[in-house]
């Protein structure tokens, strides 16, 4: 389940924000927001993708880097919503 979530999120980020990037470069701990991969529009798009794809609703404060900065933390957030 965890790997499915991580894989799906990773695939989306590669396709949407890192076209042409070697998938091995994007790890579970690559900083996305503080590392300049996601700007404000990118973050909004990612939130919409997560909500739609995983059927969860993010609270306003959950759009912070605390929750969305890595694939690891995004996966944890989605899992916590589903449990």
């Amino acid at each position, binding site marked *: 389940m965890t790997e499915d979530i991580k894989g799906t999120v990773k695939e989306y980020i590669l396709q949407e924000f*890192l076209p042409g990037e070697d998938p091995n470069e994007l790890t579970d701990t690559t900083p996305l927001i503080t*590392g*300049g991969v996601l*700007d*404000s*529009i990118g973050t909004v798009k990612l939130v919409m993708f997560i909500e739609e794809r995983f059927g969860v609703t*993010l609270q*306003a404060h959950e759009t912070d880097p605390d929750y969305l900065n890595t694939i690891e933390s995004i996966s944890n957030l989605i899992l916590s919503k589903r449990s």
Partner: protein
Amino acid sequence: METRRVLHQLFDDAVARYPDNTAVVEPGEGSINYADLAVLSNRLRDRLHALGVRSGDRVGIYLRKSIDGVAAIYGILKVGAAYVPVDPGAPAERNSYIMHNCDVKAVVIENRFAEKFRAEYERLGALPYLLTLNGTGGGRALRQALDDADQEARAPEIETASSNSRDLAYILYTSGSTGKPKGVMLSHENAVSFVDWCSEVFQPESTDRFSSHAPFHFDLSILDLHVSLKHGAALVIVSEEVGKDPLRLAPLIAEQRISIWYSAPSILALLAQFGNLDRHDYSTIRLLLFAGEVFPVKHLRALHALVPKPRYFNLYGPTETNVCTFYEIPTLIPEARTSPFPIGVTCSHLSSKVVGENGSEVVAGEEGELCISGPGVMLGYWALPELTAQGFIVDAAGLHWYKTGDIVVEASDGNYTYMGRRDRMVKRRGYRVELGEIEAGLYRHPLVEEVAVIALPDEEAGVKIKAFLSCGQAKHPSLIELKRFCSEHLPLYMIPDSFSWHETLPKTSTDKIDYQRLKEMA
């Protein structure tokens, strides 16, 4: 127009008239009334004076946007110094350069930024005095820092400086084409003439609630701060995090009953697209002002349909003049319209003219560079006399005209329409971005041999920035590595949208990078 007054006098006049009104609201952190904000800023004035800050000095502000930050601005002005706000999210190296460049006497800084700042600054010279705050929020951290300093030795109370209207009030650093930011020097007269123009056109009331969306190092903040606090109104601080997140910003604007909104169009476009605006009540908004870049008409139309009540104004002007033209958006935006609205007519406190390449005025209908004269025009660029001189033309009567670099056309009704730039500056999220500064940042990467950055028009974002690079190695840095490198060396709004690697970059016959060819390749 009367412009002999100074910014902190406008504030103190409001304090005398509206001591109990709420001056600043910081959602989640509290609020402060005019009387208490005056006390806090006076205490900082006294402390800065005790530290040796005098009229004519510069004092840096390295804080997140907060009540503490607003009090710091007025404290610095009241001791007669000029404030120099920096982007706390920008690399410490850039902020140290700025503080060192204008030789600040002291810096009001949050402890979370102090260590990196100190390390970077010490490479440049002897550290200025740091008044370190343990965080920000509600003015408490500034109050605590002043209490702590008073415990050691109480700062004697001094008179607020009776500054001259031509004195420097603040320096705003903008992107520089040479790779280093440049400091735009603005006097009290520059700011007050603009603030008074806002009073005349927008008729603010003490019951108004202004948004403070722009960061304090961005020139849009001058309207937010100094117009609201001149009129006894409330200034509602929007934090950096919430300010870029339409999902959190949309409810905040409604809950805080904002009546005068002012921001760059980019966040308004995001609000229209993703903010679920139809779920909230925006009936309190009476003025919706935007500036800093072109507002794509399709997003403006969508926003107007969702929030139809306010009057919408497009304000235009570079940091060097603040707002110099304005245009009221018509209440009906035809479906067929796709071209952006004009930037409008000249503000009453300024004069404008359009000049051709030879420097002589062109007639209405012809393209030329917009030039501005009057009390709103900057004193110059800090420590860059040549650049300052290049920025102006002087007419036969000795009048100085600031050359905006913007190419415009004047219509028969007197409205100007923006056509483009005459140099390599673009606007992104309202910020000025010199493509040369991005190139200089990328050149610092050890593997990068050649860089060229171009801007391409984009319907969604206004412009997309594309970087072309070459490196001598077989394996070039990954996209993630490049973006991370950029985030450490450039403000986030300067990070290119895309990167492409080439063996070498195309050259012209004089062996310069061929930008025209790159645009064709993009």
